[in-house]
């Protein structure tokens, strides 16, 4: 059953132009465009463009996939009545959830591979297998964290329009304050403050550090881990609240 559900989930993802464009086309295209503009710069930690932005854009793809095709999809199915019709079928909820998670992992892993290969072939990025393994492990963990955050956030939406506007605005904010467009330390002060409140910024910092073998358990990384952990706890609390509300219906 899980294989059938996953097959159709992936098929539906591939047919949603909006998802494909925002998750698998825009981030790699931006990665190449930004590389053409700032490819010669050196970034914090003495990193090259590819060393700094390859993990960033992998994370951006992950964000796009999880927020659009997992979170936003949930709202669409809930509002349109699809969720209700599926709930009537004798398919276990855990099968549907597991399939959605596997879909997210498969699509984001494709993004991981795609951007990494772009980095290798376009920017001569060199890979060290220990760092690749560690960063893939962190990538899976961040995937799980984003799934929890996305599920919690989108559980509050009752209209597709509201969720759509939120998704697009959030995508822009995340691009700017997550360190995906320009290094945050070169941005105005207010953007730097905003970045501190953006979990994607903290994830990005950790992911870049692990990807390049520069991770240290220092004050900055502890703050990042603590902030992400707090967001997950809040999200789990929100999800519990949403489940209770659902059960009362």
């Amino acid at each position: 059953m899980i294989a059938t559900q996953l097959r159709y989930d992936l098929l539906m993802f591939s047919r949603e132009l909006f998802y494909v464009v925002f998750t698998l086309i825009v981030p790699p295209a931006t990665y190449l465009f930004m590389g053409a503009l700032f490819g010669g710069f050196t970034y914090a930690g003495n990193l090259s463009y590819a060393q700094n932005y390859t993990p960033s854009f992998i994370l951006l793809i992950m964000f796009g996939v999880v927020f659009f095709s997992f979170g936003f999809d949930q709202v669409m199915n809930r509002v349109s009545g699809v969720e209700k019709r599926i709930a009537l079928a004798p398919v276990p909820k855990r099968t549907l959830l597991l399939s959605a998670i596997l879909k997210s992992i498969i699509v984001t892993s494709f993004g991981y591979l795609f951007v990494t290969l772009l980095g290798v072939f376009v920017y001569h990025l060199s890979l060290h297998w220990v760092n690749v393994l560690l960063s893939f492990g962190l990538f899976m963990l961040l995937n799980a964290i984003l799934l929890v955050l996305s599920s919690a956030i989108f559980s509050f939406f009752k209209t597709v329009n509201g969720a759509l506007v939120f998704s697009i605005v959030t995508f822009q904010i995340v691009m700017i304050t997550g360190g995906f467009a320009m290094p945050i330390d070169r941005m105005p002060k207010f953007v730097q403050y905003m970045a501190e409140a953006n979990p994607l910024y903290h994830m990005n910092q950790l992911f870049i550090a692990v990807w390049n073998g520069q991770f240290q358990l220092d004050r900055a990384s502890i703050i990042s881990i603590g902030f992400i952990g707090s967001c997950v706890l809040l999200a789990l609390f929100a999800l519990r609240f949403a489940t209770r509300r659902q059960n009362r219906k």
Partner: protein
Amino acid sequence: MEIIRVEGLRKAYGAKEVLKGIDFSAEAGDIIGLIGKNGAGKSTFLEILLTLRSYEQGTVQLFGQELNQASEKQREQIRQQLSAVLQPTQFYKTLKVIELLKLFKAYYQSPLDVETIIADFKLSDHRKTYFDKLSGGWKQIVSLAIAFLSEPKMLILDEPTTGLDPHMRNMLWMYITEYNKRTGGTVLLTTHNMDEVELYCDRVMLLNEGVAEVFDSTEGILASGFKSIHEFYLTQVAV
């Protein structure tokens, strides 16, 4: 054989009570029409029977199982035996008709051949059409085809003929009555079309402000002096 038994069912949304002590029962093979104004509680009643909504008071037994005491596994087993056409009819919009049928065949682990269902429901011309691109009538037919895939013991239809042209409506009723005769399945439906109730339903329940004011056979209602179910409805339900 009794399929549904409901006693003293009460349901509220916040302070608003929408079902105020419903008693109801259905036997295998019954076709029962649920009628009443918009907001009378019909859809809520059906959604409780479909295991989609909780309820505060009363008992609801489906196939002998009390819903409020059923585990998730038992609810799945109940769902295996029932199917529905909901209002509005919605499925994954980016799947084609043939893909939807195959997916739901997997959900219900149905032994029926998808090609037979396509032939039975005259869906050959639409097999590769995305669900979202179908007309309202064909969406209803696909929904009904999916409902029949599981050969359900109970079929619940929420305003199944709303928005259909007369040919589509006839076709839909042909499938429903044929299913009922062939399998002895129970059909419970809501509709605002009283002619359909008179033509096809064995029994009628009139819901008004959350109260089951009348629950009688169609013949019984007509024998009580009404020329038609339409007249009965207009007499019983205030504007």
